């Protein structure tokens, strides 16, 4: 075939779709290849919380920039994407956690983001289903929720309007020096290839180390008003950072339908995609510490997914040092919905040789973070 493309994007999760979205603004012949449905992997399995995280300067810069980009896109999104400004409520379980809330607020405010400390009474008013007598919380009003699979499809649809083509049902078995080999042996060539294969990115680019980190989610029937904000326990980052075998943290999201998405779990168990009932029970028990009546709600589905996890908890975004035609945009762990659009922008900036709005160096796939 030997068709010549400007860029081939491998993987049609939300990150690949965002890469296609921004690359197609600069380049005429962009091709996205996806072996399954668009947004059907980790993208479909996750919650869709667009959240600014303060756990490291690089993570803050990326999530903050990406949230700004999402806010510019929100008025254009179609109805299916369900963007809603729910805000995040970080909930303190005890006085020790509450003592850190003001410092966290000051960090957000100092960086130009609104943040509000709520005491016991105002937290009860804002979220009546929460356990009474909690010390308080931190409200981040500009955080939002979105329906990830629809958002991925929308991004790719916009890219297609600009001339991007899409190949479905094909996997790329090899990509090197601007040549992508498909499962059926076809070789396609391009000036640039972007590996946005998410949790499978390592199989295409063995130099980078990305591991699947399993998560469980629960969704309830429709209970409008049961929860108003995305509720996250302040201890969430502890759970996310713990690189232990298994951790559970409380995280509840109100969907536009009135359904409640309930998380979260993190496990390193390879590609075992069985639902772990005992772990689901642990998640519900954890949620009950915050929402005592949660077990009265009717659950309609549980499922698992895999986060693409790097060793330093930052995504890899940039050129592969060993191959000047190869870029990586993968390893977004539990933040891929938030950070997808900034990733796409950074990839487009790199290909165009433009500077970016944020420092790209913490995300560069150098030997330091590879393997």
């Amino acid at each position, binding site marked *: 075939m030997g068709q010549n493309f400007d860029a081939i994007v491998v993987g049609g999760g939300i990150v690949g779709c965002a890469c296609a979205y921004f690359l197609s603004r600069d380049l005429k012949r962009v091709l996205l290849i996806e072996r399954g449905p668009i947004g059907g992997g980790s993208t479909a399995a996750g919650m869709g919380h667009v959240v600014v995280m303060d756990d490291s300067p690089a993570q803050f810069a990326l999530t903050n920039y990406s949230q700004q980009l999402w806010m510019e896109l929100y008025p254009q999104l179609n109805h299916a994407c369900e963007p809603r400004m729910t805000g995040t409520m970080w909930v303190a379980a005890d006085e020790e956690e509450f003592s850190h809330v003001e410092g966290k607020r000051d960090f957000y405010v100092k960086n130009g983001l609104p943040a509000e400390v709520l005491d016991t009474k105002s937290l009860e008013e804002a979220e009546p289903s929460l356990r009474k007598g909690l010390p308080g919380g931190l409200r981040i009003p500009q955080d939002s929720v979105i329906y990830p699979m629809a958002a991925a499809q929308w991004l790719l649809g916009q890219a297609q309007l600009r001339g991007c083509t899409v190949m479905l049902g094909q996997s790329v078995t090899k990509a090197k020096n601007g040549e992508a080999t498909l499962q059926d042996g076809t070789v396609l060539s391009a000036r640039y290839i972007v590996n946005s294969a998410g949790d499978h990115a390592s199989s295409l680019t063995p130099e980078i180390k990305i591991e699947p980190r399993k998560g469980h989610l629960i969704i309830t*029937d*429709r*209970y409008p008003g049961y929860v108003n904000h995305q509720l996250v326990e302040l201890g969430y980052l502890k759970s996310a950072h713990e690189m232990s075998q298994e951790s559970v943290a409380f995280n509840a999201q109100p969907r536009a*339908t009135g359904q409640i998405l309930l998380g979260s779990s993190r496990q390193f168990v390879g590609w075992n995609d069985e639902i772990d009932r005992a772990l689901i029970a642990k998640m519900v028990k954890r949620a009950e510490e915050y929402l005592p009546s949660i077990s*009265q*709600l*009717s659950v309609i589905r549980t499922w698992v997914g895999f986060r693409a996890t790097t060793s330093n908890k930052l995504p890899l975004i940039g050129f592969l040092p060993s191959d000047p035609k190869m870029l990586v945009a993968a390893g977004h762990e539990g933040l891929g919905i938030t950070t997808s659009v900034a990733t796409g922008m950074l990839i487009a900036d790199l290909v165009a040789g433009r500077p970016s709005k944020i420092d790209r160096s913490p995300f560069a796939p150098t030997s330091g973070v590879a393997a």
Partner: protein
Amino acid sequence: MSEERIQLKINGLPVEVAQGTSVAAAILNSGRTSFRQSVDEESRGPVCGMGICFECRVSVNGHPHIRACMTTCEAGMEVITFG
């Protein structure tokens, strides 16, 4: 079978049924066939009558999404339909 009768409320109106009557039967006996509305606002009512189809969900004593066919009437119960 006890002949004992009990009183409950359906949509705020008092209804009397024989003890052991399911909430679904009580609602149907009161002349209602639409128990709730689907997401697209179509009427829904009991189909399977044995707890599988979830079409007969109503609110019982303030708890939404309760299957009427699997719930036995109790004295003073407050049932709300959304037909």
